[in-house]
């Protein structure tokens, strides 16, 4: 399988104390990776390193190309944790925001083909009805869905998402994860997703990456559930997982390891 993200010996520090070190992994085409770890463990920093938004040491390859030489940004859709203008009054419509996800062009004119793609992406995230509304006037959850449409509009082969569901209500969250699951299973889109809610997305995810300043674990969810290293490191989360197993009689991650846990 083609390598989509390959990281080798990543290290990053704001001061002398490293935020991340010894991070090496290889995400393959079609993987759906849940990136988990404690607060302050460096998950968001890792995503920023992968996207070139922060500069650290080590090597990163996107679709086989070194990050410094990578030009095919339309292959990647990115959704950050926070809405960019939640506090300011930026007079821009939801459809103009989605348009920003398409490859940049010179001039201000928008072609009919571009608008068609914008509306198709908005249809996918159920935001078509907000197309003409000012982005700032939408609720945080609606804004997040518009931003997901922006991440999807270029029909990316890789989606990088930083806790995208925190502002969404239950029904929008379900729609959101169903859509991601469909993109992964039917269209082969590779997904790297930071999440704290392993129970909710567990049924879709194929691999887990656990980061706490360093790479603690990277592998399938079956390996994740059986890993002593993970059990040692997870603490409260492991307890939560075990409680869930006792209460529901199956693994909350949706893997086939439930029998062994019981």
């Amino acid at each position: 399988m083609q390598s989509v993200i390959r990281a080798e010996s990543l290290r990053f520090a704001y001061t002398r104390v490293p935020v991340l070190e010894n991070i090496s992994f290889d995400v393959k085409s079609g993987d759906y990776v849940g990136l988990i770890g404690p607060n302050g463990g460096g998950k968001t920093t890792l995503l920023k390193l992968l996207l070139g938004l922060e500069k650290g040491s080590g090597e990163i390859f996107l679709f086989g190309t070194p990050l410094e030489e990578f030009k095919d940004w339309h292959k990647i859709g990115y959704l950050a944790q926070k809405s960019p203008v939640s506090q300011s009054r930026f007079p821009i419509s939801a459809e103009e925001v989605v348009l920003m996800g398409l490859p940049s062009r010179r001039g201000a004119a928008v072609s009919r083909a571009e608008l068609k793609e914008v509306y198709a992406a908005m249809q996918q995230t159920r935001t078509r009805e907000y197309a003409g509304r000012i982005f700032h006037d939408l609720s945080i959850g609606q804004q997040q869905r518009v931003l997901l449409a922006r991440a999807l509009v270029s029909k990316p082969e890789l989606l990088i998402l930083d806790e995208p569901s925190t502002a969404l209500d239950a029904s929008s969250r379900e729609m959101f994860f169903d859509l991601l699951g469909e993109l992964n299973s039917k269209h082969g889109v590779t997904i790297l997703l930071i999440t704290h809610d392993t129970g909710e997305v567990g049924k879709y995810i194929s691999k887990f990456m656990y980061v706490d300043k360093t790479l603690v674990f990277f592998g399938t969810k079956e390996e994740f559930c059986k890993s002593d290293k993970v059990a040692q490191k997870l603490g409260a989360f492991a307890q939560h997982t075990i409680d869930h197993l006792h209460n529901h009689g199956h693994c909350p991650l949706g893997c086939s390891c439930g029998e062994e846990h019981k």
Partner: protein
Amino acid sequence: MIGEFLSYGFVQRGLVAGSFAAAACALLGVFLVLKRLSLIGDGMSHVCLTGVAVALLTSTNPVYMSVPVVMLSSLGIMKLTQKFKIYGDAAIGIVSAAGLSVGLMITAFAGGFNTDLLGYLFGSILTVARAEAVLCGVLLAVVLAGLLFFYRDLTSACFDEPFACTRGIRAGAVNTALVMVTSVAVVLAFKVVGIFLISALIIIPPVSALLLSRTFKQVLWLAAGFGVASVWLGVYLSFVFNIPSGATIILVNLLFLAGSYVYSKWGVKDAR
């Protein structure tokens, strides 16, 4: 009265140069205000004093002397924020204080204030030379061309810089270009309203426009319109009442801002 006002050559030159400079400042100001960099204009204007003082000391053209000084200072502000992780407002304060104190030191060395320097401090739109008016026209043309050509990159980098970077847009280069062109605008516009008030031409028209607009393109048109209208009305009122033109232009801008606020608060509701 208006006919007489417009018949003077110096008034015509002042209005043309002032309109070009005000429109350029307002258009650049829209991006600076939205990126919360608007006070950079204030910092640059203080640094102008160094350029003007050196020019008066060496009997050279203050505009040509100030452009490199202000450009280097704004690059200094960018470096302080990006490389040394100093907050933007603190970096502007540092460079601004440095510019002002060096300018005052040179002025003292040169034997104190004279009428030329006071003209730059408080503006003298009616003494704008033909070459300066042409330069203001070139500046506006550059701003408009950049805006039309890079409209999408500029709005994207202004709205959400990290996402813009993931589209391959070099947001750092966009910021640097924006600040560099603003440096030139600040220098060319200081004759219109004076060094002390130049930042108002960058900040107030965009803020007024933001209160009234529903689209980003509307903001750009309205901000430029407010800037130009304030120059025409300000110069006319200063001519009629014999009051300082620079201060009058800014007071007209403040009136536009107050009117925009009132309309956005009550006018829109009534329309609904």
